[in-house]
């Protein structure tokens, strides 16, 4: 049985599934630009519904291989066999590997904590000094490092 194109599955799922607001956000800093503010990754509610439902999203490794495919060349992820349902925590890990540069979650070897998965209520809703936000470094983490 064919599973068609990923976009077709997304469009069909949107007509069928209720959006799911994640209780998590991912806060991260880009080690290549240490003076910039921390960034916040916000999962899309329709995407989260697809992740929790299963049989819609492709394996994460297809996205990773597609990073090396030149623009205009056929990519793997739109036609890959979809994976099963994820938990919300697994979905966040998937999203980190998909939407955050590997230099943040895989390659960074420094002492600072540059990425954290946090409950949404820990992200300040007041955007004062937004361009100066940084991830708080815990004392025990610095000692451990």
């Amino acid at each position, binding site marked *: 049985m064919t599973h*068609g*194109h*990923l*976009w*077709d599955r*997304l*469009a*069909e799922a*949107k007509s069928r599934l209720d*959006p799911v*607001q994640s209780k998590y*956000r991912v806060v991260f800093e880009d080690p290549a630009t240490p003076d*910039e*503010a921390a*960034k*916040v*990754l*916000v*999962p*899309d*509610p*329709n*995407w989260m519904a*697809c992740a929790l439902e299963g049989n819609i*999203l492709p394996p994460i490794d297809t*996205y990773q291989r*597609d990073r090396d495919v030149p*623009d*205009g060349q*056929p*990519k793997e*992820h*739109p036609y890959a066999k979809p994976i099963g349902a994820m938990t919300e925590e697994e979905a966040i890990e998937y*999203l980190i590997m*998909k*939407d955050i540069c590997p230099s943040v979650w895989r390659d960074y070897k420094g002492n600072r904590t540059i990425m954290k998965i946090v409950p*949404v209520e820990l*992200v*300040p*809703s*007041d*955007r004062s000094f*937004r*361009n100066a936000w940084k991830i708080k470094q815990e004392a025990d983490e610095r000692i451990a490092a």
Partner: protein
Amino acid sequence: MSTLNVSNITDGTTTVGTSYVVNGSAKAWVNFNGTGTIAARDSLNLSSLGDNGTGQYQVNYTSSFSTVGYSVEGVASAALTDVGGTVSVSATGRRSYNDAGTLTDPTYYYHTVHGDLA
């Protein structure tokens, strides 16, 4: 899910090629709140939004585009918009400014993309 495989669509008087309909459909869109803890109100083909600072966002797509030759439209409430930061087949950076040219967070940010999917 079943598939209707036709070359043209007609109402009996006017006929249009299916390719016009398929190619003319928006392949990704989102309406999001750029203030506070930013959040999408509704969307299609998005995996996540990035909050990169005041008035600076990144839209990440679930199904990537074939090339970066896609077309982006955007409007924000009481703000000017442009494309900035990352522009790739899987993500588009967006910014919004007030009339003075300062980056600002809009209550409503509308982003739509037309183009060929990978």
